C-alpha cells in the first residue's frame, strides 16, 4: 500500500484524487493488482431548524450511502481545516499536520487540502453594465472577508471567458484582477461555467464556483443541465447570486435553483447591492462551516448515475438538516 501512496499522491495533486489507477506491488513474488478507485469528495453543510450552521460534528455522526450501499468514510474535515484520515469512524490522530501521506496516499497536510478553492465567475456582459461597479464592490468585500487559507480565482465572462486572476491566496492579486474587469458583450453563462468547472476540477482539495450573474444567457451552446452534470461528477458545488428579479425571469430562476441544489450549493436572488453583500456573507459563512466527507466507493456495478445520501446518526438526525450533492457519474 505504501508503494501506491506516492503515485496516488502525485495523481491527486493533478487530478483532484479522482480516477486514480495504481498498482500494488508488495515485495516477493505476489501478483500485481490493479484497482480503479474514485475518491468521492462531498461538501456537506449541516444546519439547525433555525438555519444556523452546526459545528463540531465527528465522522461517526455521518452515514453515507451510495445507491443505498453504505460507504466507509475515508477522510473527514470541517471548515477550512485539512481533512484527516478516518479510522473506525474516528478522525485519526496525528495525521493532520504531519506532512506524511495518509493511509490511502493522500497528503492530508498538503497546503492544497487546506481551505477552499473559490472560483468567482463574474458576469461582465452588457446586461451587467449598469450595476457593474456595485457588483465589483460586493465581490471585493467578499474577497476581503474570506479565510486566509482559501485561494481565489477571479474569472469574468461575457461571450468569452477571461481568466482575470488564476487561483491565488494573494488577496491583492485577486482584487487587482477584479478591479481590472472590462465590460463585454453577449452572455454565455453556461459556456463560461463549464470552462470554470473544468479548471476547478484540475485543482486538488475542496473547491466551489460562485457565479455572479443576472442572466439570462443568450449565447451558450450548452444546456445548463449538461454543465450541472459536470459539476456533480466533479463534486464542485455551484453558488449563484443573481441580480435579476426571479419573477421577471422564472426560467433562469428555476435553473439556478436546480443546478445549485443538485451540486450542493445555493441560489440567491439579490437585486440590490445590500442583498448581494448579504448573499456573499451567507456563502462565506457556509464555506467556513461545511464538512468535507470523502470515501472510496464500495463495489457497485452501476456505471451510470449513482445517487448519494448523507444522513446524520443518532439524535442529530432528528434535529438537523443536511445539504450535499445528489450524486455523480463515475469516470469511464
Amino acid at each position: 500500500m505504501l508503494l501506491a501512496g506516492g503515485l496516488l499522491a502525485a495523481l491527486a495533486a493533478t487530478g483532484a484524487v479522482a480516477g486514480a489507477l495504481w498498482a500494488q506491488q508488495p515485495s516477493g513474488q505476489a501478483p500485481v493488482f490493479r484497482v480503479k478507485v474514485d475518491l468521492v469528495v462531498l461538501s456537506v453543510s449541516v444546519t439547525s431548524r433555525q438555519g444556523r450552521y452546526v459545528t463540531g460534528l465527528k465522522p461517526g455522526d455521518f452515514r453515507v450511502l451510495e445507491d443505498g450501499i453504505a460507504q466507509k468514510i475515508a477522510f473527514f474535515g470541517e471548515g477550512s481545516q485539512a481533512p484527516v484520515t478516518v479510522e473506525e469512524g474516528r478522525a485519526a490522530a496525528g495525521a493532520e499536520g504531519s506532512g506524511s501521506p495518509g493511509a490511502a496516499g493522500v497528503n492530508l497536510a498538503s497546503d492544497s487540502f487546506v481551505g477552499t478553492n473559490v472560483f468567482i465567475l463574474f458576469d461582465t456582459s452588457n446586461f451587467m453594465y449598469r450595476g457593474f461597479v456595485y457588483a465589483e464592490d460586493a465581490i471585493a468585500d467578499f474577497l476581503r472577508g474570506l479565510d486566509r487559507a482559501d485561494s481565489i480565482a477571479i474569472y469574468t465572462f461575457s461571450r468569452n471567458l477571461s481568466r482575470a486572476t488564476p487561483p491565488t491566496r494573494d488577496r491583492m492579486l485577486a482584487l487587482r484582477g477584479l478591479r481590472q474587469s472590462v465590460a463585454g458583450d453577449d452572455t454565455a453563462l453556461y459556456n463560461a461555467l463549464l470552462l470554470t468547472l473544468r479548471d476547478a476540477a484540475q485543482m486538488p482539495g475542496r473547491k466551489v464556483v460562485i457565479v455572479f450573474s443576472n442572466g439570462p444567457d443568450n449565447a451558450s451552446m450548452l444546456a445548463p443541465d449538461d454543465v450541472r452534470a459536470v459539476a456533480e461528477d466533479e463534486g464542485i458545488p455551484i453558488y449563484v447570486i443573481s441580480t435579476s428579479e426571479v419573477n421577471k425571469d422564472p426560467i433562469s430562476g428555476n435553473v439556478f435553483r436546480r443546478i445549485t441544489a443538485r451540486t450542493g450549493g445555493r441560489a440567491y436572488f439579490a437585486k440590490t447591492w445590500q442583498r448581494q453583500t448579504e448573499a456573499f456573507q451567507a456563502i462565506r459563512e457556509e464555506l467556513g462551516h461545511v464538512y468535507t466527507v470523502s470515501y472510496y466507493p464500495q463495489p457497485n456495478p452501476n456505471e451510470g448515475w449513482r445517487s448519494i445520501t448523507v444522513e446524520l446518526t443518532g439524535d442529530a438526525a432528528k434535529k438537523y438538516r443536511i445539504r450535499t450533492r445528489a450524486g455523480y457519474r463515475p469516470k469511464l
Partner: protein
Amino acid sequence: MRYLKQLSCLLAVWGGAAYAQETLTPAQKLERTGEPLRARVVLARAAELNPRSVGALRAYAEFLDSYNDPARREAYQKLLDALGPEESAERAEVARRLALVDLVAGDREAALRGLQIYRDAGGRIEEEVERALGRPVAGGSPATSETIEIPGALRSFERMAALSGDLGLSELLPALARNLVTSGYQAARNTEGLEPTEYLKLLSRYISQARELAQMAGPDQVIRISTCESSETGQLIKILGYRLRNGCGDDAVLETVNASRAFLTTDSGFPLAELEEALHKNQPFQYEFRPAKVPVLFGPAYWVSGEKNKQAADFLDVLLADPALARLYLAFIEKLVSKDDGWLASYFDALARLDGRPLEYFTEPARMRRFYLAVRGRVTSPGPARPVFRSNAELMLLTSRLQIGTDGVPRIPGGLEPWKQLFVNHPQGKYDGKLTRAANSWKAPDDLVEALFALCRKPVENEPLKIFLAISEVDRNRKIPLRPATITRLINEHRVYGTQYALLSDAPSLSDETILAMLDTMAGLSKIKDHGQRSDTIGMFQALVSVWQIFCRQGQILESQADRPLKSLTDLFAAVKNDRELFDAGRSGVRTLLSATGSSEGVSRQDRMLELLAGNAAPADQETYRQAVSELASLFELQRLVSLKTLFDLADHLESVSRGEKLNVAMANRLAARISEIRLPRTTLTSVEKNSFSFGYWTEKHVEEQRKLNLRQAVEKAAGNPEKLKETRGLLAPILRDTLVGFSYIYYAPPGAQIIRTNPLFVRSHDFLGVLAAVRTWRETELFGTGWPSNGGGRLLGSLTGLAYALAEAEQNFLVPTQRQALIWGDLVPQIILSAKVPRWWQVSAVEQHWLALHLRLGEELLAGAALEPKARERILEILGRQMTPARRFRIATLLAAGQARAAIELSTPSELYLLARGHLDAAWRPEGLAQAVCRGPVEREIRRLAQAEPSRANPARISEAFGSPHPTLANSYRPELLNLPTFPTLMGYSSRVLAESWESNNLYWATLADELYLPPAQLNLLVPQWTQKVVERIFATHLEDWPAVLRSLRWIGDDYRQKARRQLLDEVKAAALN
C-alpha cells in the same frame, strides 16, 4: 568586380561540391530519409573535427542556413575566420552572406560589420546602404508638430476606445476613426440625423475624466497622494467616483458613490486596487499620468481648419464630434466617391487584386469600360461607398474567381447556352428585365460576364452569380468538362441542392452520370413522407457521402476511383423504402467505402473506420498516428455512440433469430445498456421550460425513440414470424445513422471539443429536416438554439456539407482570449480553425515541408537583399506589390531604404514571402545585384536542387495541395489549396469570412516552423490545431479588417514555441553528439 562576384559564386558551389564527395553524402542521406537532426549532428561533428577545413565548415554553415538554425551565424563566422587573406573572393562571399543573415535576424550592427569585411575583401557597398545601417532605428515619439496629446495612460484610452494594445502609435488615430465610423453613431430616434452610441458617450466621458485627472497630476504629470488623510485623497476619489467607507485606517475600503464615474475608472484600468491598498495602509500612492503623443496625418491644424475657433479646437474633440471627419480621416477619397457614388473606386479595388491572365482580361481598355458601365448603371445611387463595409463583395468574387483560358477567353461551364436560358427563361424567377432581353442576343462569353457585372450592383442577393461561381468551381479542375445538359440541371436545381455542389468540386473525376444520379437520389429522398424515416435516410446518406469526401480528400480513395463508390452510395439509397432497407443500405454503404479504400474484408469495421479517418501514416509516424486514433475513439465514446461492430453483430444475430435461433439476451442487453447511457438533461426541466422547446421536435423524437427501444420485447412480439423478425433490424437504423454521422463530427472536432465532450446528445441532435416550415435538409450546416433557455443545448441544423465550419463556429466561444478586453473574432475564427482541421499532413514528406520552408527563407533573404542592394529593391517591391496595397508597399519600401529588413519581414505575411520567392524564381529576368546576393546563398540552390531531384514533391502545385487551406466561400470547396490571393477586406454579407479564407499564411508558417525545429510533417496533425487555438486566443484586433493582429499573434505563438523547443532541441543535439 562583376567577374569577381561570379567567380566567388562558382567557388562557393564548387567548394561545397568537392567536400560533398567525402562527408555530405551521409548527411544528405540522413536528411533525405527524414532525419535532418542527425544530419546536423554529423555535419557539426565534421566541422568540429576539421576546424580549418573550409569545406566542412561551409557544409555545416549552409546546412544550418537552410534550416534557419540560429547557430548559422556562428558557423559562418568560423568559416570566415578559417579563410585566409589570399582567399579574398570567398571571404567576400561569406562576409556578405553573413551580413545578409544578420540583417534577416535584425542585427543591423553585425550586418554592417559583415559588410565592412566584405568591402575589405574587395566587395562594393552602396554608400546609402552603409549610411542607413549606421543610423539608429527611428522610434519613440514622432515630431511634435504633427502630434496631439491624449490625456492619461495610453492603455486606458485604448481600452475605452476599443483599440488593441498592440497597435503602433501611427496606427492609433486611423483605428480610432474606423471605430468611430463603425460604432460611434446610430440613427437618431426622433430625427433623421445621427446620435452618438453608448460607446462614443463613454469614450467622451472618459476623456473628460482623464482631463480632470491630468489637471490634478499637475506639471510633473504624476498623481500623488501622500497619506490617506491628505486633501488630495478626497479630490482624487471624487473624480474616480468612489468614497472611503469606514474612514482611513485598517478598515478603509473604497466604495462606489458615482456609478458613471466609477465605471469609467474601472473600465479604463485605473489602478484602483493599488490605491485602495495604499489608503488602507496609509501609505503614499503615486501614478504616472503622462499624456501620449500620437501622430496625426498632415498635422492637427489641417483637420481643424474648418473650426471657428482654431486655437481652441482640440483635434480629438473635433474627431469625436464629427462623423464625417472620421470617415475622411479613414482615407475616404471624397472626390472619387462623389463622382459616381464610389463605383469606380469599388471597381478599381476589385481589379487591383488581380494578376496574370485575369488582370490582362479585365484591364483590356474596351472591356474595362464596358464592365464599368455595366456595374455602375445609369443611376449610381445607392453606391458601394455608402455602407460601413465594402459592398462590392460580388464584384470581388467574380473578378477573383473567373477562369480565363490560355486563349484569354473566360471559361463558361457548358458554353453560353445554359446561362442564356437562365436569364431568358429564368427558372428561378426573373432577375432583370433588361438583362433578360439582352440575353437573347448573347454571342460571346463577355456578354455573360457583362450581365453578371450588371447584377453585382443590385443590393439584393445575386443568385445568377452564385450559381455561376459554384458551377465554375465544379468544372474548374475537371479533365473532362461537364456536359451542357448536366450544367443546365445543376443551374436549375441550384436553389435546392447548391450547397451540395461543394462535394462535386472536391472530386473532379466524377462522371456526369453520377452527378445526375446524385441529384435524382437527393430529390427522391426529399419526398419520403414519414418525417422520422426521411430524417434517418437523409442523415445516413449524407453521413456516408461525408465520409467518402474525407477518404477522397485524404487520398484513401484515389481520385481516379472516386466515382464508383459515390455512384454505389447513390444507388443504394435511391432504393430504400423502409427502415430495414435503410439499415441494410447503411451497412452496404460502409462496406462500399471500406472496399474503395482497399481495406480487407476480415477487419473490424469500427476499428478500420477510425484508422482511416485518422489518416494514412508512414511507419515512422506510428506514435503520432496512435494518438490521433485514440483521440477519435475517445470522442466517439463520449458521445455514447454505438460501434459498427455492435450494430452489425446484432443485425446478423437478428437474422439468425429470424431463421429460428434463440435471441442472445446478453447481446441485446449490451445494446440496451449502451443506449441507456444516453442522458436526457431535459428530464429535469419544468413544464414551462419544456413548452419553450417548440422546435426540435423531430430530434427530440429521434433521441426519445432510441431510449425507448426494447429489442428483446420487439423480438418476442415478432416471435414465430420470420418476416417480422427480419424487420426488427430496421429498429437499429436510427442508431446506425448516429454512428455514421458521428464519424464526421469526431473527424472535424475542433481543438478542445468542449461541446462533444459535454453534451452527449450533440451528434444525435443533428436536425436534418429543419425548423417548422423552413426545410433545411440540403442547406449549409448551421448553428441553432444557442443561448439558453431555447433548448437543451445548441445543435446543428441542415446538411453535413458545412459541418467542419459549423463545428468550429459552435466551439469558438469556448476559447479563452489571453489578452484582457479581447474577444474571440467571431467571423474569422471558424475559418482559421477550419484551416487547421481539414488539411492533414500524413502524406506530406519532409521534402515538401523543407521546400516550402526554403521559400519562406528565400523570401526573407530577398527582402534583406533588397535592403542591401538599392538596384534590386524596385524589382522586389514590384513582386510584393502584386499582393499588397500601395500603402503597405510604400511602408516596406521605406523600411528597406532605412536598412530595417527585419521590420519589413515582420510586416510581410508568410504567404507574401512565399509568393515573393516564387515570383523571384519564376521571373525570367534577374536583377544584377540581387542575383549576386542569392546565387551565393544555399537557400535558392537547395530549392532548385530539390525541384530537380524530387519533381513530384518539390513543386508549387504539390505545396498548394499540402499546405493550402479550404475555401468554402471563395472556391466552393473544402479541398485544401493555395489560391494566392491578396488578403481580402471585410465584405458586406460575408463579414470577415472571405478575409479569413484569403488568409493562407498559417499553415505555411507552421510548416516552416516545424522544418526549423526538425519536426516531421506528421506531427503537424497534432500540433497545428493546438498552435492554432493559441493563436486565436492571443489575437487582439481592433476592427474586423485587422488581419495584422492575426499576423502578430501567429508570430508571437511561433516565437514562443520556437524558443521553448530550441532549448529541448539543443539537449537532443548534445545527447545525439555523445552517442
